[in-house]
């Protein structure tokens, strides 16, 4: 096999397509409306982007291991409802409520993982069932009403999770740093560590991994737990930022998150995953949502663009894949 040139290797990278798309998107929206790159608009776009982004980061690792999780959207709604219900009823302090919500999320992830690995049921069915159970619980516990969250504003936990501060006129939420930290950490885990190698192998060829002594089941269960906890974490951040813990929030997020991950270049079938790609995928979809509104396209048309992007990126990935293999 001959050594490829730097440019060729760059193009062969799964992140290359999403990167170009993001640049084109940014340039296009900016050309039509210069306000698109104003500090105010960037700040607004980022605030919600990082919340979905946190879920997408965990989903990247889970999908690389060959599974996915449809229950993240309902977990996004359920975890803050649980935390605020505990706090508002006086049962626990906010800190304890926060920890309880994350532990419950981890347990739900454990159940997802146990069903998938021990009962050998596909993650599609398991997490679809869990989606309904979790969403149903959130609605039942609250009678469908949002929980009060306004008492959080000055609490230290709220400040640490999503406190806002200004860099000049640029407003930044703390959640942006949580997202960046999670991206760096999970990117490191996936590309540099032994565990990352096991995640890739579990998704690529589970039998081969098992034969080498890799505990595929434990790896996948841990990732289901991570995915549920990240969704809970993101939901709690969102509830504090918007001052609302709505049992219905997060509906449909699971599909948007999975779309972000696959657009970024992670394989739906497992074995191949990129955290950098996911960060790009997250930005592509959120920038698209923000941009089409800003240039005057009706917001209802959003899904048309998202669908077209998914189809286009899948075609590109498949073409690159075939080209890559044909060239060797």
């Amino acid at each position, binding site marked *: 096999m001959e050594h490829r040139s730097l440019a060729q290797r760059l193009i062969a990278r799964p992140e290359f397509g999403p990167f170009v798309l993001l640049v084109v998107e940014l340039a296009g929206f900016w050309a039509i409306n210069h306000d698109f790159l104003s500090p105010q608009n960037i700040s607004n776009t980022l605030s919600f982007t990082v919340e979905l982004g946190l879920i997408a980061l965990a989903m990247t690792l889970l999908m690389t291991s060959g599974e996915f999780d449809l229950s993240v959207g309902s977990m996004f709604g359920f975890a803050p409802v649980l935390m605020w219900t505990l706090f508002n009823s006086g049962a626990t302090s906010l800190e304890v409520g926060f920890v309880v919500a994350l532990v419950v999320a981890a347990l739900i992830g454990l159940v997802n993982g146990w069903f998938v690995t021990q009962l050998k049921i596909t993650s599609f069915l398991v997490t679809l069932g869990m989606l309904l159970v979790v969403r149903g619980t959130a609605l039942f516990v609250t009678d469908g009403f949002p929980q009060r969250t306004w008492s959080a504003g000055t609490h230290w936990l709220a400040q640490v999770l999503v406190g806002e501060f200004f860099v000049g006129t640029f407003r930044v939420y703390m959640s942006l740093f949580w997202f960046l930290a999670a991206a760096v950490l999970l990117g490191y885990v996936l590309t*540099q*560590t032994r565990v990352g190698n096991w995640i*890739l*192998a579990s998704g690529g060829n589970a039998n081969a*991994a098992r034969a080498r*002594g890799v505990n595929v089941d434990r790896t996948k269960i841990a990732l289901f737990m991570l995915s549920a906890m990240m969704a809970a974490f993101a939901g709690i951040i969102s509830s504090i930022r918007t001052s609302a813990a709505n049992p219905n929030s997060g509906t449909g997020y699971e599909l948007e998150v999975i779309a972000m991950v696959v657009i970024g270049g992670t394989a739906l079938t497992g*074995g191949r995953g990129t955290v950098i790609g996911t960060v790009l995928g997250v930005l592509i979809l959120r920038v698209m949502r923000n941009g089409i509104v800003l240039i005057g396209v009706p917001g209802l048309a959003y899904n048309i663009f998202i669908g077209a992007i998914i189809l286009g990126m899948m075609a590109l990935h498949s073409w690159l894949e075939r080209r890559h293999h044909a060239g060797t």
Partner: protein
Amino acid sequence: MNAMAEPLIRMEHISKSYGRVQALDDVTFTVNQHEIVGLLGDNGAGKSTLIKVLSGAVPLTSGEIFIRGQKVTLRSTTDAIARGIETIYQDSALVTQLSIARNLFLGREPIKPPRFLNRMDQDAMDAVARTLLKKVGITKDIPPSTPIGALSGGERQAVAIARAMHFDSDLIILDEPTNNLGVAETQGVLRFVRGARDSGHSCIFIAHNIHHVFQVVDRIVVMRRGKVVADDIDPKRTTIEHVEEVITGMAEETVDLGAAPP
């Protein structure tokens, strides 16, 4: 030395039935140290089942397995690997998306200190991979970062064999390693197998193509309908035609076929 005289692997009176089907019927089979054994037989003769029992993939119904004279129970493939028995099935043993180096060390990745960072020592893995690829006789310059998916069938076999050699497997079982390979690739794989023996490993070589078996093995064992019908054929002292007759049952001798006239 007593330990040297003892065969590496001794399977005694092995039987395996799937429901009413008797896949293995009182099979006794040995592999000596530094020996390549060719295991032959028609489809359904029981070769695959015997190998699956020895690699821990299926439990035996009755019988005993000894490794260097010590009785063992093989509960899983991991169990067998830990005891130095490595089975290489075509394609199934490697993760095509991962690089050569990462496949070689899958499950045993070296860690860079500090250990809590769980960071793989990529340089060490690459260095070992380079040496190993040379050792098994890959002369082309293939970077260790190449994904398995970009390799040819023969090169994949080579990587699997290299891995077994590096982790000191005493016995390397090759199940149809030359299937679907071109002539040059096949010669490459046969060279890897000889190389493995010369560096102290034993091999069981299973192939449909008797010509390939003749080129590489020290001893041929033939199975038919779940039984071993010949276990000491010397490929240097017999002909392919004769072995074919034993496989199909046209030659019924079961003792010392090595002396049969050409």
